């Protein structure tokens, strides 16, 4: 499946992401809608309400991304808040240390208030909600679960607590990245998401355990997509922030492109696009793919150094449940997801990315080098390329040797160089030829012809014999190529003689 996903993704790479995003927008936002509605209320919340909602849900990245249409500061604040929660993994009240200062007091209040908070929401958690422990992990889980359609929130609560350490981690990862990546999230997608999200007023609360999520295709579909979004955002932000770190120039180009574009397209690297498509194509493996993609990106950017921590999560996630492999590390990495059945080591992921890039370049070269369409295999292809480059260079040398001997007495008309024929690669009006009466020379050149011809007569008579000798010498020098050129050399001299008689 992973393989299929990969191939499908590669095929649709350039077109799918947007489509995918649009298609899944609603689903994503249904998924996230509840979170958003719960936490952030509908679209026009006050900053406080936003804060509260977000803090309470301590949403995943998707949530934080969801309301781009809202005031950015609010988003940032909420994300920062979430980030706080995530990173500290402790009761949130203490953790609101760094980051968005805007939120600081609000955040702490939000977190601490926990249970008192929730009732404040207009969209509400069911009244049956028990008291919430002010636990970041719990809140994250709760937030996430609220996304998954309606349902019994209470039921979700208890199982959810024991649930998903890695979803919590992923949430943390999301949040960890969210605060940093938010600035990058100014994309259409997020706007769309936000709008759709805001429309979700009801609280589809079908919170379930991870297992239930796995079984529920809809959830699986939604969940990875939300993570996908988050990952896109993370990826983009990570790109932007980590651009300076990139050592690979080729990769840097991709990243530059990625950073420069919206998140929808900004994931210029194939990995991210594939990620987007993967969720669409393979629902069950979506999460896994996303994790792989993200892990891969991450590995690439971090240069395989310190990614083991981040990448171990994808591995662990995959072990647990196939669908929800949101394995975002806590740091700002670009996430690469290992495909199913493949090693998730950071080195192997980066290696795979590199190999894919290489194969793409090889394909391009295959088009350039004539006669290489049926050649398969890197080594043979390289041989062909080397042969071709060598032959081209030999041709240049031969032609320059020919130029050195053929026309030392020619007077080049530089003005004629700017002839129209240059566009087609033929140089007709450039050079006054050796006086052939057949006119490759255009009108402007002809007036000069007589002078050139005169000179030619002079020079040819002088050097004719020596020139022929030289040509023969050149031919005997062993130019193995360009038989026609040799014949041309030979024919050149008779033509000179001919010209002499002409004039």
């Amino acid at each position, binding site marked *: 499946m992973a393989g299929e996903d990969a191939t499908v993704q590669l095929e649709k790479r350039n077109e799918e992401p947007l489509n995918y995003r649009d298609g899944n927008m609603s689903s994503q936002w249904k998924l996230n809608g509840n979170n958003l509605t719960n936490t952030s209320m509908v679209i026009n919340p006050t900053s406080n309400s936003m804060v509260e909602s977000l803090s309470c849900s301590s949403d995943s990245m998707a949530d934080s991304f969801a309301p781009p249409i809202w005031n950015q500061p609010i988003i940032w604040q909420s994300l920062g808040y979430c980030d706080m929660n995530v990173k500290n993994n402790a009761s949130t009240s203490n953790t609101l240390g760094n980051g968005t200062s805007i939120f600081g007091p609000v955040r702490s209040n939000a977190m601490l208030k926990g249970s008192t908070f929730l009732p404040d929401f207009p969209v509400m958690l069911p009244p049956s909600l028990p008291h919430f422990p002010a636990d970041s992990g719990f809140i994250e889980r709760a937030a996430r679960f609220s996304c998954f359609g309606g349902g019994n929130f209470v039921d979700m609560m208890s199982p959810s607590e024991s649930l998903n350490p890695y979803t919590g981690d992923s949430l943390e990862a999301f949040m960890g990245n969210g605060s940093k990546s938010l600035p990058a999230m100014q994309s259409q997608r997020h706007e769309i998401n936000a709008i759709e999200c805001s429309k979700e007023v009801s609280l589809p609360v079908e919170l379930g355990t991870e297992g239930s999520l796995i079984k529920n295709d809809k959830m699986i579909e939604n969940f990875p997509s939300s993570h996908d979004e988050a990952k896109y955002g993370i990826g983009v932000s990570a790109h932007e922030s980590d651009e300076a770190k990139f050592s690979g120039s080729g990769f840097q180009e991709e990243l530059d492109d990625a950073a420069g574009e919206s998140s929808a397209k900004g994931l210029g690297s194939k990995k991210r696009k594939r990620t987007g498509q993967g969720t669409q194509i393979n629902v069950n493996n979506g999460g896994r793919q996303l994790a792989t993609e993200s892990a891969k990106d991450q590995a690439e950017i971090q240069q395989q150094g310190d990614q083991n921590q981040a990448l171990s999560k994808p591995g662990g996630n995959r072990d647990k449940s196939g669908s929800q492999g949101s394995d975002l590390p806590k740091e700002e990495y670009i996430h690469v997801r290992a495909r199913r059945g493949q090693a998730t080591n950071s080195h192997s992921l980066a290696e795979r990315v590199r190999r894919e890039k290489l194969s793409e370049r090889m394909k391009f070269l295959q088009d350039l080098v004539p006669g290489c369409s049926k050649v398969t295999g890197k080594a043979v292809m390289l041989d062909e390329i080397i042969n071709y480059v*060598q032959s081209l260079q030999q041709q240049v040398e031969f032609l*320059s040797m020919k*130029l050195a001997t*053929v026309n030392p007495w020619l007077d080049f008309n530089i003005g004629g*160089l700017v002839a129209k024929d240059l566009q087609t*690669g033929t140089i*007709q009006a450039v050079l006054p030829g050796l006086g052939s009466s057949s006119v490759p020379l255009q009108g402007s050149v002809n007036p000069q012809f007589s002078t050139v011809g005169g000179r030619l007569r002079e020079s040819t008579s002088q050097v004719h014999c020596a020139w022929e000798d030289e040509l023969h010498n050149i031919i005997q020098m062993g130019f193995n190529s360009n038989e026609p050129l040799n014949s041309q050399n030979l*024919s050149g001299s008779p033509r000179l003689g001919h010209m002499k008689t002409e004039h």
Partner: protein
Amino acid sequence: MPSNHNSIKTRFTYRFARSLKKLNKNRPASQSMKETYRRYHMIRVASYASMASAVGPKRAWSRAVLWKIRNRTLHRTLMKKSRIHVLRTRKVSGNPNDLRKLVPGGEGMDFCRLLNETAHYIKCLRTQVQIMKNIVDHCSN
């Protein structure tokens, strides 16, 4: 990019023809082998230099060519000898670093970047050969 390539073609042609003109101006009457070799060498350098300057400093290989030419005056004699020798004994050899040696500036880059540069280099080489052929054809007509 076809439009870029056309402009590269134009620029190369202009520069190359200009340098050929300059070279031909100083040509003595005698056509000794040595003289021919020297001219050949200068023309070849002129063609690569014209192409590299037409491409500009955007590409690593063009930068390498221009840099090499700039430092050429110190090693002119040595290089000429080695070049002629290479011209006579050139043969196809194995893979691994050959592409690096062929593409100017290819020594110091990773393989992926090397392939990029090779692709662009091949395109420009083809243009160079084509235009030089045209010049030779016109000169030989």
